[in-house]
């Protein structure tokens, strides 16, 4: 029997409790207390996947110790470094994560890069189970000539820059071009476009970094064109974010009526979310916006547009050969219909002048350690309901399990699923917890021997307080510290 608490505490299904004669549950419990081994589980990554997995495990297992290791000195992954600064409500999840981190059965350690500072094998020596929730640290490449010219950025780097991600703090994007092209029709593309077009007075009240504000104040960008390789029925962004774009106070939408005529029939039978999303685009493109909106749109100098059925072929340089000047696009047509439709080039090619290109075609996960199987083609850890294939004791959740799509609620559900698999394996004995494990103490001594000092959750709370205090001075919810050295100094390292 591998997990005492699990069996005795099982609530649903034909619980053992009901199968045993009265009194024997207590008997088993007493018997097991002496030999009781605490299941020790560690989680790699402190984004929504890491925290929701931890939350579920702590909540549904009374004894389990769940520790979290995070590469950055600070927690919360994309909630801090992805979610747009003008969407503070989304970040409320941090409150629930904070509760989890403060549990006396959870030790959070930042500043520990798993795979480098400590290996997966070492973690497996210290823990009965290791859950990989390390997200997607890279971006998908376009794989076209000119992708590395000056003026071409991945949306990931741009987002990291305005959100204060240490590795992107010195990006200094060149915003001197009047036209910006955003490649991709996902929500990240809309985030990036919105940040480029939003009035400064809105951004100034957000937790966007001061450097980004200064750069955006000098930005020359007037037009943002979002380019998708497929059609209006295949956009990946969602309606709330589209509506926000349409309602931007100082930019007008330009949706080409020709792209939207005749879509009415195609959406009759599609599920409601796609239907409403399409209807909003159709309405914006084809209907009279009403007097108030029309006069606002007439008075603003900034504009955004959606361009469809164009696939990027090449970014063309200026005469200097270094700086982006234009983008060459293949005109495409759709093969098939609906979500599965494929874009195929028609042979026609177009060019569009632009000095700023933001490639927002998705994030990408990377392998973390040779001990963990990785499907390089799909960019995920191969798994069955979160159980890493062919690696007992290893689990995964979040973007590294599913691929880099899905909002926080999607990540939450899939993390609960993974936690569920761990609980099942504890109960069935598939996960062997018969031997005691060294847990955090063992990892700490390994880290110590390598000169790595973890940043604890209470350390983070000091950094947090300092950021909030700095933000107060300028009327922001916080001023993010972007230099890891400064963070470490703050906590006396």
């Amino acid at each position, binding site marked *: 029997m591998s*997990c005492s*608490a*699990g069996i*005795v*505490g*099982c*609530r*649903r*299904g034909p619980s053992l*409790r009901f199968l045993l004669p009265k009194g024997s*549950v*207590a008997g088993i*419990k007493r018997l097991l207390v002496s030999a009781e081994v605490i299941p020790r589980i560690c989680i790699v990554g402190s984004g929504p996947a890491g925290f*929701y997995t*931890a*939350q*579920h*495990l*702590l*909540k*549904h*297992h*009374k004894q389990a110790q769940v520790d979290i290791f995070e590469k950055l000195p600070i927690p919360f992954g994309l909630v801090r470094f992805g979610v747009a600064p003008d*969407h503070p*409500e*989304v970040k*409320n*999840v941090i*409150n*629930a994560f*904070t*509760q*989890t981190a*403060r*549990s*006396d*059965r*959870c030790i959070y350690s930042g500043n520990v890069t798993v795979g480098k500072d400590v290996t997966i094998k070492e973690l497996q020596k210290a823990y009965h189970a290791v859950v990989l929730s390390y997200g997607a640290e890279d971006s998908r490449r376009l794989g076209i000539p000119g992708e590395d010219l000056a003026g071409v950025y991945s949306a990931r780097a741009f987002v990291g820059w305005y959100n204060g991600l240490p590795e992107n703090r010195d990006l200094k994007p060149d915003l001197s071009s009047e036209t910006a092209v955003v490649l991709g029709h996902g929500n990240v593309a809309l985030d990036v476009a919105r940040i480029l077009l939003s009035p400064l007075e809105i951004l100034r009240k957000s937790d966007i970094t001061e450097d980004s504000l200064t750069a955006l104040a000098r930005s020359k960008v007037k037009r943002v064109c979002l380019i998708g390789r497929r059609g209006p029925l295949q956009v990946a962004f*969602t*309606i*709330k974010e589209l*509506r926000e774009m349409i*309602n931007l106070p100082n930019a007008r939408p330009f949706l080409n009526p020709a792209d939207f005529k005749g879509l009415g029939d195609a959406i009759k039978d599609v599920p*409601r*979310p796609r239907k*409403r999303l399409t209807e909003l685009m159709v309405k914006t493109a084809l209907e009279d916006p009403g007097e108030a909106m029309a006069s606002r749109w007439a008075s603003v100098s900034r504009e955004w547009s959606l361009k469809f059925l164009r696939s990027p072929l090449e970014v063309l340089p200026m005469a200097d050969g270094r700086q982006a000047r234009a983008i060459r696009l293949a005109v495409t047509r759709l093969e098939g219909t609906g979500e599965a439709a494929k874009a195929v080039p028609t042979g026609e090619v177009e060019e569009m002048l632009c000095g700023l290109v933001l490639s927002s075609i998705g994030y990408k996960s990377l392998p973390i350690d040779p001990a963990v199987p990785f499907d390089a083609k799909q960019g995920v850890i191969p798994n069955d*309901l979160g159980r890493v294939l062919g690696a007992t004791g290893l689990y995964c959740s979040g973007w590294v399990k599913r691929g880099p799509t899905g*909002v*926080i*609620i999607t990540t*939450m*559900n*899939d993390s*609960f*699923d993974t936690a*569920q698999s761990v*609980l*099942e394996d*504890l*109960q069935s004995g598939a996960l062997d917890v018969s031997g005691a494990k060294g847990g955090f103490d063992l990892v700490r001594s390994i880290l110590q021997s390598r000169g790595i000092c973890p940043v604890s959750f209470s350390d983070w709370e000091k950094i947090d307080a300092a950021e909030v205090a700095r933000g107060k001075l300028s009327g922001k919810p916080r001023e993010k510290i972007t230099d890891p050295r400064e963070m470490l100094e703050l906590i006396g390292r």
Partner: protein
Amino acid sequence: MAAPGLLRAAASSCRRILLAAPAGAGRPNAGPRRLLHVSPRPSSEDKVTVHFVNRDGDKLTAQGKVGDSLLDVVVDNNLDIDGFGACEGTLACSTCHLIFEDQMYEKLDAITDEEMDMLDLAYGLTDRSRLGCQIFLKKNMNQMTVRVPEAVADARQSLDMSKNP
């Protein structure tokens, strides 16, 4: 433009306790605290009883005051619904998705575009779905039953090892 519900929700979120925290999480006196209601104790007439059918079929019954949102009811009564109310009532998450009975659904206040937009991202969307943080208790809701939709991607029974007999 913010919906009225959104404004209201945002205003009340400062007094929201942390949701969906693991059992036993949190040190005493640590973290944001829910402020005490300063209003006089409501009379029993202002109380509305609501039954929640949880994901596992368990029935949870709780009371709230007229004007409370269903999210308030879940939080105030510490109802154990996994992941409920992640954005704390600010129309930014859809984890407060609830399914209503036909007759009650008809009687609810009209839905705003903003609620509908967020609802479109909810799991297990039905034509009687609403977001709990946008539904405010009225007297005629007394004894209503709302259902928490199944969220887990696969239909496994969820295991709970937290409750020792």
